[in-house]
């Protein structure tokens, strides 16, 4: 096991360098840079060149990449934001926390609902309940996250206009009077603001995971060893949950690794529409401002998360599935 893990870890290193270099090149391909916005300055015609030189943006692309890489590796220093002159790490960590605060409960809820529904649908294949759930999940797959979020906001605003208060808020993380609330009140207030985005994020991946679970469960239930178990006269319960579910759940474990970065992206549109100050809104505004170091820091974090996530889910799979050799 240990040599396998080490081999996998060593394999990650070239991928990391290549992925960050690729990201750097793509960001650099965009026309102009951060300094371009100072091009038209009647007071100081040299402003653009001066700012570009002072930020080191006049260096060749590869040189800048190597400088950046050296700082990241030796000092864990991701540079500073060109727009806010803030340390990128300080800028990103709270955003990351906000994103996770939305994602973790949403993900847990999704799995708690999706897995039982998937199992139910598979065990009662083509029943009325299964058909209804299948139609619903097809609908769920066809609605883009951001549109679902938009509909939520629209209903919420409509309710506010008619009644003068919010049923569930759909903008931001806290109320305006947040700082005046007691600690308990603050906790309840942030929980209240979490409801709407959490529901949308959970709904958006619910359909997908339900379908995977149902399909995988059906696949396993069609296997010969299940028929053998039935022929032996084992209890249906024991067949379903001991023989079938244990194998069907493997796929869910395999998808877990890529989940977090995928979810950060998937929830990103919801964050944008519902003004949740997570990573994606920061990424978007940095794209528009060409804030290289913020972009690179977010991309690097996500790349590392994805690589480690995939590794962990492979390891988990190897641990629980004795058929996998490494």
């Amino acid at each position, binding site marked *: 096991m240990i040599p396998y893990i080490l081999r996998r870890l060593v394999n990650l290193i*070239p*991928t*990391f360098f*290549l*992925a960050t*270099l*690729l*990201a750097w090149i*793509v*960001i650099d*391909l*965009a*026309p*102009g840079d951060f300094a371009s916005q100072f091009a038209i300055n009647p007071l100081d015609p040299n402003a653009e060149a001066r700012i570009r030189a002072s930020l080191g943006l006049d260096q060749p692309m590869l040189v800048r990449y190597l400088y950046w890489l050296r700082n990241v590796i030796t000092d864990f220093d991701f540079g500073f934001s060109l727009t806010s002159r803030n340390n990128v790490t300080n800028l990103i960590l709270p955003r990351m926390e906000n994103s996770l605060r939305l994602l973790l409960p949403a993900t847990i809820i999704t799995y708690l609902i999706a897995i039982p529904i998937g199992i139910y649908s598979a065990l009662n294949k083509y029943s009325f309940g299964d058909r209804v759930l299948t139609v619903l999940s*097809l*609908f769920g*797959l*066809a*609605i*883009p996250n*951001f*549109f679902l979020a*938009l*509909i939520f*906001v*629209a*209903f*919420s*605003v*409509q*309710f*506010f*206009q008619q009644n003068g208060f919010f049923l569930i808020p759909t*903008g931001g993380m806290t109320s305006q009077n947040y700082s005046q609330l007691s600690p308990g009140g603050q906790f309840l207030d942030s929980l209240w603001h979490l409801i709407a985005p959490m529901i949308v994020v959970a709904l958006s991946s619910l359909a997908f995971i339900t379908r995977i679970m149902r399909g995988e469960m059906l696949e396993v239930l069609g296997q010969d060893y299940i028929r053998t178990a039935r022929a032996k006269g084992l209890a249906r319960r024991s067949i379903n949950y001991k023989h079938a579910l244990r194998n069907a759940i493997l796929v869910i474990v395999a998808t877990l690794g890529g989940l977090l*970065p*995928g979810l*950060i*992206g*998937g929830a*990103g*549109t919801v964050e*944008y*529409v519902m003004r949740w100050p997570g990573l*994606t809104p920061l*990424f*978007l505004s940095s*794209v*528009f401002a*060409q804030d290289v170091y913020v*972009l690179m820091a*977010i*991309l690097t974090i*996500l*790349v590392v998360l*994805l*690589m480690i996530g995939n590794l962990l889910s492979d390891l988990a799979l190897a641990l629980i599935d004795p058929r996998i050799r490494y």
Partner: protein
Amino acid sequence: MADTVPVVPSGGAEPTDARVVRSESLSTIAWKQFRKHPMARVSLTVLGVLYLLAAFADFVAPYPERYIDPGATFQPPNRVRFWDEGRFVRPFFYPREQALDFETLETTWTEDRDNPVPLQFFARREGVRDRYFPFPVNLIPAQLRQTLGMRPWATLHLFGSSDPEVPFYLWGSDDLGGDVFGKILFGGRISLSVGIIAAVVAVFLGLLFGGLAGYFGGWVDEVIMRFVEALSAIPDLFLLFTLSAIFYPLNLPASTVFMLVVVVLAMIGWGGVARTVRGQVLSLRERDFAYAARSLGASNARIIRRHMLPHTLSFVIVYMSLTIPSFIITESVLSFFGLGIQPPSTSWGLMLSTAQNFVGVTGLGDRWWIFLPGLFIFIAVLTWNLLGDGLRDAFDPRSRQ
């Protein structure tokens, strides 16, 4: 039934004469399987209608693509009426009038009941700006049409207001006074075609590089697969945003932006195809027919083209039909964020960004019609998914009935 030859089961076919064993081509089997899927067939019809509407958008929409009327922003839909004082008459509508409420400072729209305006079918709009290129001609890129010196000539519209002074908005107007119904049709051109073209490009790149990697192995394989791995290590949405940032500030012509969006979508899609195709080619390479072809002196290119790629056909068809809907959503996300299609062109995602800009001001009730493009994304994605399910069952031997 004593002297019958055993019949090889051939995809649900029922040979009239049991002694004649007919082999069926892949397409015949697939079509027979596909026809058993009622939802897939319904979806095919719905998609056909959507694509026809997009193709003939100039004719079906009452106004040209870039028509705006700053005097009629957010006008509610004009209701088409058939009954006038209990009598059935030809379709007409009441003009909408806006009035400013000086207490609440809200504009309210009322119907002018005294002046009914009849709807005109096969109406002509003769103005220079109203002329358009009818369907097959409008597929020619705008630049090419200009160099050829072509001028739009068609003036016929399916329906429209009979009074040029009174606007008719079937599904209301947007923030610029554009016709939402027409914009949905024109936007459908981009939203519906971007997915198909991007999927074709992604499959082409995936087949090319996956085929090369799998067939030649060695350092070619190493280089290509390392690149694919690095590309897939960056989460899709963020890669998309970064890629789009390359072109969105450039003020490029609409057709160029369209092609760039296609390329960006294909960039995130081809890696997965390459990986699967490589795996398939790796196993096909060792099969007897590949050795036979090689020993008969076939060139590498011929072996790849004639013996490897046809085996990936089923995968490619199924992959495309399930990727197109996801690309439709991705395009709408990009345009929604202002990183995809740029105005004055329009797409469903871009239209929804209007809804995003105004949703904080107004609830669903006041301006519900600006959310309609979302309904069309939903229908297009749903029907493509159902069609894809049908195709998968048709081409996947394991799920044949």
